[in-house]
C-alpha cells in the first residue's frame, strides 16, 4: 500500500527491533524508529547497558538519560532509549510473570479500539509530490479514499479513522471529509494535516469542519501558539503529536490551553514511564492523553495496547498502522476485528518474535553482548 500524507509518500517503513536477553534467561522485546540515527544510538546505548540491572528501568533510563534528558540527541535519543526501555519493561514483566499492562498499572480491558489511517489519496505506487498534487487537483478522486475507508469497515469493522491530509487543498479535504462523514455517519474521524496548513487557512478550514463532528483536529497548523489560537476559534477538540512531544512541552501547553488531546508517541516520549507520567500530568490538568503511532510492527502496536489497557486516562482509540503492513515480525498474527485489537494473554507483551520473518526482513543486525 502507498501511504500519502503532507510529509511523505511512502511504500515501506523501517524499524529498529530490540531483543534484550537478561541474566535469568528471559528475553524482552522492544522497538523504535528505524532511522539510521535511532538505530545507531540504540546500539550505542545498548553497549552502555551491559552488566546493569535490567529490572531497574528508572536506573537504566538515568544511565542513558545523560543523553536523552539533556536532549543531546533530540528525538532520536529519546526514541533510541524508548526502544531499549520497552524491551526492559517486557523482560521485567515476563520475569515477574505479569502482563505488561499489569506492570504498568492494571489490566483494565482486554480489547482496545484502533484507528485506521486513511491516506491523503489512493495511489497505485509511491509518486513524486508533483504527481500527488496532480492527483489532488482532480476532486473526483476523493471517492477513492471513501471507498478505501468503507473497505476497512467491511474487512475489519473499523469505527475510527484518521485522514492523513496532504495539506495541499482545503477544498479536497473539505469535500473528502464531508463524503467520509456521509458514508460513515457514526464513525470517529480525526483529521491530520501534520501542521502543513498555515494558521489562517487551517482556522478557516477547521471552522467549516466543525459542523461535521469530527473526533479531533490533529496538528491542523504549526507551533504551540498557532494551534492554541486555532483551538480558541473552533469547537472540535484539537490534538497534537508534533508540538507537545516531551516533558518540557507539557506545562507550556497546559498554561496556554493549547490543546485538548496529547497524542503521545511512545518513541518520542522516550518510553513507558515517560508516557505514563505524561498521561497522569495531562489528565490532572484536563487534557486527554492518547496513543499515537505510524507504522509500527506488532511489538510496539501491542505495547500501545497494553498502555491503553493499563491507564484509565486513555479514552481515545489507539492509532495503528500494523494492519497495513505486508508482513510482521511476530509469530502470532495480530488481527483487527470489529475495529479493535485484543491484548495477548501471557506475560510481558505476550507475543513471540518470529526469527525467520525477522531475518527475511532484516536490513542489518548487531549483537551486543558482554565478553
Amino acid at each position, binding site marked *: 500500500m502507498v501511504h500519502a500524507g503532507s510529509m511523505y509518500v511512502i511504500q515501506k517503513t523501517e524499524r529498529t527491533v530490540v531483543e534484550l536477553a537478561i541474566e535469568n534467561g528471559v528475553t524482552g522485546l522492544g522497538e523504535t524508529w528505524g532511522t539510521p540515527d535511532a538505530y545507531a544510538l540504540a546500539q550505542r546505548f545498548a553497549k552502555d547497558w551491559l552488566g546493569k540491572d535490567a529490572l*531497574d*528501568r*528508572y536506573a537504566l533510563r538515568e544511565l542513558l538519560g545523560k543523553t536523552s534528558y539533556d536532549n543531546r540527541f533530540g528525538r532520536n535519543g529519546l526514541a533510541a532509549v524508548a526502544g531499549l526501555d520497552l524491551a526492559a519493561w517486557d523482560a521485567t514483566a515476563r520475569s515477574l510473570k505479569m502482563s505488561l499492562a499489569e506492570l504498568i*498499572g492494571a489490566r483494565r480491558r482486554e480489547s482496545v479500539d484502533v484507528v485506521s489511517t486513511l491516506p491523503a489519496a489512493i495511489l497505485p505506487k509511491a509518486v513524486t509530490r508533483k504527481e500527488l498534487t496532480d492527483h489532488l487537483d482532480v476532486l473526483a478522486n476523493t471517492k477513492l479514499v471513501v471507498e478505501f475507508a468503507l473497505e476497512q469497515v467491511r474487512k475489519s469493522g473499523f469505527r475510527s479513522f484518521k485522514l492523513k491530509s496532504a495539506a495541499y487543498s482545503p477544498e479536497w479535504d473539505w469535500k473528502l471529509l464531508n463524503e467520509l462523514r456521509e458514508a460513515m455517519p457514526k464513525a470517529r474521524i480525526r483529521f491530520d494535516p501534520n501542521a502543513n496548513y498555515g494558521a489562517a487557512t487551517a482556522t478557516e478550514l477547521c471552522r467549516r469542519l466543525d459542523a461535521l463532528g469530527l473526533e479531533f483536529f490533529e496538528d491542523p497548523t504549526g507551533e504551540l501558539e498557532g494551534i492554541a489560537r486555532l483551538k480558541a476559534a473552533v469547537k472540535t477538540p484539537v490534538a497534537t503529536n508534533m508540538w507537545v512531544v516531551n*516533558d518540557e512541552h507539557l*506545562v507550556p501547553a497546559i*498554561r496556554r490551553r493549547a490543546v485538548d488531546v496529547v497524542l503521545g508517541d511512545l518513541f518520542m516520549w522516550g518510553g513507558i514511564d515517560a508516557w505514563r507520567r505524561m498521561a*497522569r500530568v495531562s489528565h*490532572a490538568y484536563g487534557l486527554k492523553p492518547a496513543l499515537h503511532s505510524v507504522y509500527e510492527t506488532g511489538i510496539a502496536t501491542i505495547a500501545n495496547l497494553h498502555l491503553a489497557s493499563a491507564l484509565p486516562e486513555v479514552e481515545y482509540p489507539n492509532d495503528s498502522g500494523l494492519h497495513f503492513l505486508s508482513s510482521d515480525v511476530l509469530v502470532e498474527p495480530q488481527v483487527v476485528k470489529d475495529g479493535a485489537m485484543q491484548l495477548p494473554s501471557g506475560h510481558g507483551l505476550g507475543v513471540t518474535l518470529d526469527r525467520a520473518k525477522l531475518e527475511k526482513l532484516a536490513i542489518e543486525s548487531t549483537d551486543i553482548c558482554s565478553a
Partner: protein
Amino acid sequence: MAAPVAIAHTHVHSLRLASGAEALVARVLAADGTAGFGFTLNLDAGAARDMAAWDALARCKGVALHALLGGSYRNKIHCLRDELPAIAADWTALRKDILEGRHEILRIDPFAWGSVEMVQTIAAVASAFDLSIALLAPNAHPWEIQYCAALAATLKGDDTRIVVRSAPPFASIPVSEEKGIGIDWSIESSFSKIQWQS
C-alpha cells in the same frame, strides 16, 4: 489505581505502639496466599490497605516495591528536619496552586493522600512543573520513614527527600531491596502479637 493483585481477604487491626500511639495495621491476603502488610497512624485505614496490597504483590513477585513501580531513581534518601506544614490532601486545590506557581517544593504526607497511585500522580505533576518533593513522615515513626523511603525511591527528581518534624533519627535511609515495601515490622513488638483472622 490499587496494586494489580487479586485480593482474597483484607483485615485491619488497631495496634498500640511502644510510644503509646495507636496505629491501624492492615493485612491483605493475595489470592495465592501471600500476605502483605500496611499501616497508618491516621484514622483512615485506606492508606494501610493500599500499602498492604502493594506489599502483598511485591512479596508475591519476590521483589522490592520499586521493581513494580518502574525501578529506583536512587539508592538512599536524605532525611531532613522541616517544620513547615504539609500540603492539605486536596487535589483540586493543589493542581491550581501548582499552576499558579505557589509552590517550589511539595510537602506531601503520603498517609493523608491515601495511596501509592496518588503519590505517583503528584510526583508526575511535580516533575513536569520542575518542583521538588518532600515526603513527610508525620510522626517520625521508623515505619513511616521506611515507607516514605520506598516511595521516594521511585520518584523522579534530583532532591526528593523525607522530612520529619523533629531531628531526624538518621541523615539518610537506604532504599530497601527486601521483598515487599521494605518495612521492618519487628520494630514494634506488638505487631507479632496481632491475631489475624484466617
